[in-house]
């Protein structure tokens, strides 16, 4: 597997993700309040927080699905609003909801996603993704006929189909069986070792503890903790204990 990153193409090295004063307001609700965050290339980074903390809003701003009220978001140096085409080419997003197009099969969904990113001849990588994510016997099955876990695998494959240097996983293991979780994390770890930056949100804090080098904790749209996983756990037994302690403050 080969992966692109900013240093590969002779560019100055930019952070994988850079948020500056990022705010988002939905009518009366302030979903994000001036978030500043930098994630370096190659990090396996966890974004934690209770429901409604602003995690998905932050991810949606990076993906271009939501527009920030104030502040800037950049992916490998490209502003997600002003240079949206360049930013999107470098980003793969696994959404939280099990969304799918009911008209098409797994292989068609992957071929379309590949095409949207300008990749016409991507069959070998699509085949590899199908095999690695245990979808071989479902490749020509309509998306409607897949179980929830299988649909989740397809979402992961769709996010990786253009080999993005930055991958965002928004609660990718919600409602997923143990077997898929283990195979999914093995694959994501491999991608991280190969150079991908991973930004993960999850409510399974033991997963974040095992996988992530650094953690940010969001509460009511503000970052209330940002440190290495080890430092956050210095005075706690686990990341979950640290999370509960910080959220209670």
């Amino acid at each position, binding site marked *: 597997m080969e992966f692109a990153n900013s240093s590969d193409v002779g560019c100055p090295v930019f952070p994988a993700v850079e948020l500056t004063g990022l705010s988002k307001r*939905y009518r009366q609700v302030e979903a994000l309040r001036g978030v500043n965050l930098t994630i370096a290339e190659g990090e396996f980074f966890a974004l934690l927080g209770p429901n409604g903390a602003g995690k998905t809003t932050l991810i949606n701003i990076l993906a271009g*699905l939501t*527009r920030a009220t104030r502040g800037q978001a950049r992916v490998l140096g490209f502003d997600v609003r002003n240079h*949206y085409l360049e930013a999107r080419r470098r980003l793969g997003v696994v959404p939280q*909801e099990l969304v799918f197009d*009911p*008209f098409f099969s797994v292989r068609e969904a992957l071929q379309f996603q590949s095409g949207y990113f*300008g990749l016409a001849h991507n069959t070998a990588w699509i085949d590899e993704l199908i095999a690695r994510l245990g979808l071989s016997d479902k490749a020509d099955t309509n998306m409607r006929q897949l179980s929830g876990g299988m649909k989740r695998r397809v979402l992961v494959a769709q996010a990786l189909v253009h080999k993005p240097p930055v991958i965002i996983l928004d609660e990718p293991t919600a409602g997923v069986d143990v077997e898929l979780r283990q195979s999914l994390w093995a694959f994501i770890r491999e991608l991280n070792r190969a150079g991908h930056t991973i930004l993960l949100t999850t409510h399974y804090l033991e997963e974040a503890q095992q996988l992530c080098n650094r953690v940010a904790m969001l509460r009511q749209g503000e970052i209330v903790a940002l440190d290495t996983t080890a430092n956050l756990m210095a005075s706690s037994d686990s990341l979950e204990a640290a999370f509960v302690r910080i959220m209670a403050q």
Partner: protein
Amino acid sequence: MNGIGLWTLLRKEILRFWKVLLQTVAAPVLTALLYLLVFAQALEGRVEVYPGVAYSVFLIPGLAMMSILQNAFANSSSSLIQSKITGNIAFILIAPLSHLEFLLAYLLAAALRGLLVGAGVLLAGFWVVDLPLAYPLWVLVWACLAALAFAAIGVIAGIWADKFDHLSGVQNFIILPLTFLSGVFYSIHSLPPFWLAVSQANPVFYMIDGFRYGFFAQADVSPWLGLAVALPFTLILCGVAMQLIMRGYKLRH
């Protein structure tokens, strides 16, 4: 320019209706033919709109154009609302597709469906009656222009609508009156002054009239006057659709 991206989205949109061809193309053709059967049966021999042109022959181009308009609208509007409601529009919104590529893919796929249905109606028309074809180029120009205009209305409606009920409202309270009050079934010169004025203010009238001119070499107004009305109308609709996409209206929150 992401040419592969544009082609992929266009192909996806075409496949979307192609996979249910019976519903998206065959059924509207049958509906138009039923209109032809009923109206021709009721009015044949009693009405002569153009000298020497039987009513059933007069009716066919109007029905073909009505089918083009309604199906072009239905394709882009239903595709967008379905994608919004199921959430799979996110796959397109996170992709590196420009606003223009997004718009073009939806417009062209919807126009193609409209044109396929229109071609189906015309083929059936050529088979059952002796339909003349005076100016094929005018027929093609008007068919494409009208399909694009209503594909654009479909994009606008699909982006604006939050639920299928909204789309149904546009379909029943805007599209249907626009098409029915445009001279599909009659010449507007047979109308009383008020309805004549209403029809003359309806851009769809010029589309149907111009389309008919391509077959019979006679029409209620000059096709060039029609073009002067319909072309800006289509461009404005495409511009409005483009603006909505650029602003991310009801697409990017």
